[in-house]
């Protein structure tokens, strides 16, 4: 097959020269015209027809345009893929507490809202635990914030590991964790709360030659009929403060 004699900067002339991957779609009309043009060219009667070279150039221009279209689309898809990947990273980051790596308050709000709707719709139980580290300020003041941070990280992982697969533990605030217990009534929630309290008591974080141990005050609230999310959290919070007032490192509610 002949190559283009017109513009030398394009190497492509016939569909067959195009790598297969650059033509992911069909253009039967153009293909039909191209083969008709081949027939006309092959006919000796058309040897001196001045229109034929022009038509060939038009065909070549069309192929270049197709190729360009495909290339632009491919590059555009590439950039779009980058955006999508970045979006997923951001989405994940927006739901994660950067210090501890467990879900953050925003993620908990979303999960709790969804779980509440589901519980109301399908019936069943739902409990939450508000857990707060006892005398955390003293840890920070005595050993420094870095040690305080390590306590939070160690604790967050211990709590997460002590939970069942479908429970969610999030960092709610400074040294506060909110635990979502789907499908759980009071006895089950008490059991989990006690388990978490014990798990917290078991951890020690080395600092300045000492081992820092912490207590955990846990407030429990089981969803009541018609109760709002805010009210549920408020009750768990109130129970947690009751646990604090009674000396801490205990479960109330």
């Amino acid at each position, binding site marked *: 097959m002949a190559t283009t004699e017109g513009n030398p*900067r394009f190497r492509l002339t016939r569909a067959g020269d195009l790598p297969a991957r650059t033509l992911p779609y069909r253009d039967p009309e153009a293909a039909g015209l191209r083969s008709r043009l081949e027939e006309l060219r092959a006919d000796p009667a058309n040897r001196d027809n001045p229109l034929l070279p022009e038509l060939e150039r038009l065909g070549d221009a069309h192929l270049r345009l197709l190729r360009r279209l495909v*290339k*632009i689309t491919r*590059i555009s898809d590439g*950039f779009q*893929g980058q*955006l999508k990947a970045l979006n997923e990273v951001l989405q994940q980051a927006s739901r994660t507490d950067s210090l501890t790596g467990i879900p953050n308050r925003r993620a908990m709000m979303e999960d709790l809202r969804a779980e509440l709707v589901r519980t109301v719709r399908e019936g069943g139980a739902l409990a939450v635990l508000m857990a707060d580290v006892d005398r955390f300020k003293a840890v920070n003041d005595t050993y420094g914030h870095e040690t305080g941070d390590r306590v939070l990280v160690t604790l967050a992982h211990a709590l997460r590991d002590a939970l069942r697969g479908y429970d969610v533990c999030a960092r709610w605030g400074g040294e506060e964790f909110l635990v979502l217990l789907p499908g759980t009534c009071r006895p089950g929630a008490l059991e989990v709360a006690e388990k978490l309290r014990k798990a917290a008591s078991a951890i020690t974080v080395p600092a300045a030659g000492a081992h820092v141990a912490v207590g955990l005050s846990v407030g429990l609230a089981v969803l009541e009929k018609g109760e709002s999310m805010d009210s549920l959290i408020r009750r768990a919070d109130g129970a947690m403060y009751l646990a604090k007032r009674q000396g801490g490192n205990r479960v109330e509610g």
Partner: protein
Amino acid sequence: MTLETLTFAATASSPRVRSDAEAGLLELAGESYPENSFEFFQPILAWVEDFLARDDRPLGVELRLTYLNTSSIKCMMDLLDAMEEAHLSGRAVSVTWFYDPENDRALDLAEEFREDLSLPFRIVPMPSEG
């Protein structure tokens, strides 16, 4: 008459642009998804065409583009076409494409742009700014 110098500050949706006719240098840096890409790129393309039409000095284009929308890709290809044409007619032109080495698709995209061109087109990792 000297060639006008282009200096566009970067905006949220368009790259920083700087042209230096003395040095024979055009730089684009940033993200490009302006409302009207053709309008945005028109003066840039015109500058390149003017520069190439005026004298025989070399022209280097440095690109640090991290994101391009579809119409910006089209405009960038038009610009590269003008450079390629100059190269094929014997002009000293070159493109340097800086890509983010931490983005694993950025190199592929740079290579897609280079495909089909015969002008000197270097693809180099952007130094990470600590």
